[in-house]
């Protein structure tokens, strides 16, 4: 195993370069010899997938921006022009639109993995909080991107979501007018959303750098949740993690391509092929699937201000997860009760997503209220209490022991030093 040796430039140019800007050394230490726990499973490959998705979105987005016109009179038609007359424009647009969905899919898997294995716990709090910030930025970027085609759902989603700010007492109305750049969702709104939709992905890229930096300071968590203790517990990033990440990325691309080439409009809403019309409200205003759980929480609460507060809190509470979970054991593999609670929580999130697509009436509202209550109950009551009362299973002495013990019977104590 290559261990932690530092980069030794071989030729004269690289030696010259390394004394002035040690970028090759940085890459070498971060992505080649960087030690990664040897027991990482495939749930750990979604960070790489997310980086890939961000790159795909930025590249396709830049080309789409060359053909798109951010004006209420032309936006819809310019998107259709891309679909019909730009060479492979249909491909660019479908890759970009479905890419947003795949980006969120990967992000949610990545987050649930962090929750299952306690990846937010000491010393990874900042790493986790940066992730929550990334989620917020993604939500904002995705929402503004959805407005750009200026279909019916674009327009009405923009109207509904910007109106949420009007719930803020006193200054709400003024904030909404300021957001719109006028007294209704209109051309100034579309243009600023376009501008911000172009800007925010680069902010995301910046925060991703911080996220990876923080990761490389504290190191990766792993399925046992215990820290690597020796070189036997780790493998070098390249080739071990890179090949594993690459394999899973290709598998992920199969799912992605399935949607892009065979079901490009499945994840969208038919109404968004109707040009925006402020005079006609669609029968259903539904956000994209990746916002549905939050939308369900918003609508579950009858008071508008409280609904908006709950929506904000449902995301903000994630940032406090490192302190809400009081258990000192990271991985759910050694927390029998938490393991069950985790899967209930996953089911609740999916249930909220389903309810978010349903009309806010009758039994759906009652169900959404119960699940919303549970969502917060999970964070505010279950996690703190569980940490105190749960009897956890004994942890292995080391990562390598956790792998090797089942194979080599009888090596009871840690033989690795």
């Amino acid at each position, binding site marked *: 195993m290559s261990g932690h040796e530092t980069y030794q430039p071989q030729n004269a140019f690289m030696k010259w370069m390394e004394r002035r800007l040690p970028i090759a050394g940085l890459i070498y230490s971060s992505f080649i010899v960087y030690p990664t726990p040897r027991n990482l499973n495939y749930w750990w490959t979604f960070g790489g997938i997310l980086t890939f998705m961000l790159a795909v979105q930025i590249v396709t987005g830049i080309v789409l921006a060359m053909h798109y016109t951010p004006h209420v009179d032309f936006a819809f038609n310019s998107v259709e022009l891309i679909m019909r007359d730009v060479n492979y424009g249909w491909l660019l647009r479908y890759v970009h639109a479905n890419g947003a969905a795949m980006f969120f899919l990967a992000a949610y898997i990545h987050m649930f993995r962090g929750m299952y294995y306690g990846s937010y716990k000491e010393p990874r709090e900042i790493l986790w909080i940066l992730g929550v910030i990334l989620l917020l930025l993604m939500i904002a970027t995705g929402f503004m991107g959805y407005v750009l085609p200026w279909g019916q759902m674009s327009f009405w989603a923009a109207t509904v979501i910007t109106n949420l700010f009007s719930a803020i007492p006193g200054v709400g109305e003024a904030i909404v007018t300021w957001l719109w750049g006028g007294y209704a969702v209109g051309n100034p709104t579309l243009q600023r959303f376009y501008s911000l939709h172009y800007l925010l992905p680069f902010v995301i890229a910046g925060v991703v750098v911080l996220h990876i930096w923080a990761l490389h300071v504290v190191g990766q968590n792993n399925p046992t949740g215990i820290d690597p203790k020796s070189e036997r517990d780790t493998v070098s990033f390249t080739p071990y993690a890179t090949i594993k990440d690459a394999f899973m990325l*290709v598998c992920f691309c199969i799912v992605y391509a399935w949607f892009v080439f065979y079901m490009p409009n499945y994840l969208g809403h*038919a109404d968004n092929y109707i040009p925006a019309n402020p005079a006609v409200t669609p029968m259903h205003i539904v956000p994209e699937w990746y916002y549905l759980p939050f939308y369900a929480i918003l*609508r579950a609460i009858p008071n508008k201000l409280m609904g908006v507060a709950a929506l904000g809190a449902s995301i903000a509470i994630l940032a406090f997860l490192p302190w809400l979970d009081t258990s000192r054991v990271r991985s759910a593999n050694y927390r029998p009760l938490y393991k069950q609670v985790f899967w209930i929580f996953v089911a609740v999130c999916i249930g909220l997503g389903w309810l978010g697509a349903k009309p806010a009436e009758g039994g759906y509202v009652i169900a959404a209220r119960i699940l919303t209550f549970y969502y917060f109950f999970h964070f505010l009551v279950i996690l703190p209490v569980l940490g105190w009362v749960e009897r956890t299973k004994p942890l292995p002495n080391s990562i390598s022991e956790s792998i090797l013990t089942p194979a080599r019977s009888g090596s009871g104590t840690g033989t690795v030093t």
Partner: protein
Amino acid sequence: MLRSILAAVLAVSLAGAAAAQEHADHSTPQPPRQKWSFAGPFGKYDRAQIQRGFQVYKEVCSTCHGLNLLSFRHLSGLGYSDAQVTQIASDWLFKVQDGPNDQGEMFERAARPADRFPQPWPNENAARVRYNAVPPDMSVIAKARTYERGLPWFIIDIFTQFQEQGVDYITALMTGYEDKPPAGVTLPQGLMYNKYFPGGAIAMPSPLTDGRVTYSDGSPQTVAQYSKDVSAFLMWAAEPHMETRKRIGFQVMVFLIIFAGLMYFTKKRVWSAVH
């Protein structure tokens, strides 16, 4: 005023309209499933069918419904030659507004292949006066109409690649007219009853009758056939690159699956050193 509009927008969007739709859904039957040549991963348009569908559009629909995202030149995708496209454009029922000419005046001229399909009416208000509603543009209507599939179908659809709700709906709508609305439904003045139209009251009178369009290829000249043909044409109009998309999609899939297999074995080989 503003406050009340905003309040209304929220109220309507978040609850009222949703509830109304739910009620409409319960009384609206699901459009029957049709067989489409373009469905599935290897689907292709039936050139004869979409040409017939275009004929139906040209002779029936186009008097009221625009196709303003398409140009005549796009019709070569239906399998027409350049000469045929030029002929179709110059014979089109509506002329193209052009100008100003050297005298500074606007004038009308016959369409050319590079022109967009001319609008059948001068503006929306004129259309509303003439037709009691604004006839929707048909360029992307096959993607702009759908119906709710419900659980578990919306999950199964991912695997079966079913995405022909729009064309099924249009076909059903063409054949869903009934002379008398069912008991308990009162139609507003001047509206027709169509059981597949959400809410049932539609401004468009039944557009098709048996024998209205004369086919040259011997296909049955029935409302059922017209409906299917025009729906297939509208699918092509909404998604002209579908065949290319599915063809490239298959190549991409084959590539990715082989690539994934190679990556898997490479991964196994690399990791065999540490396992």
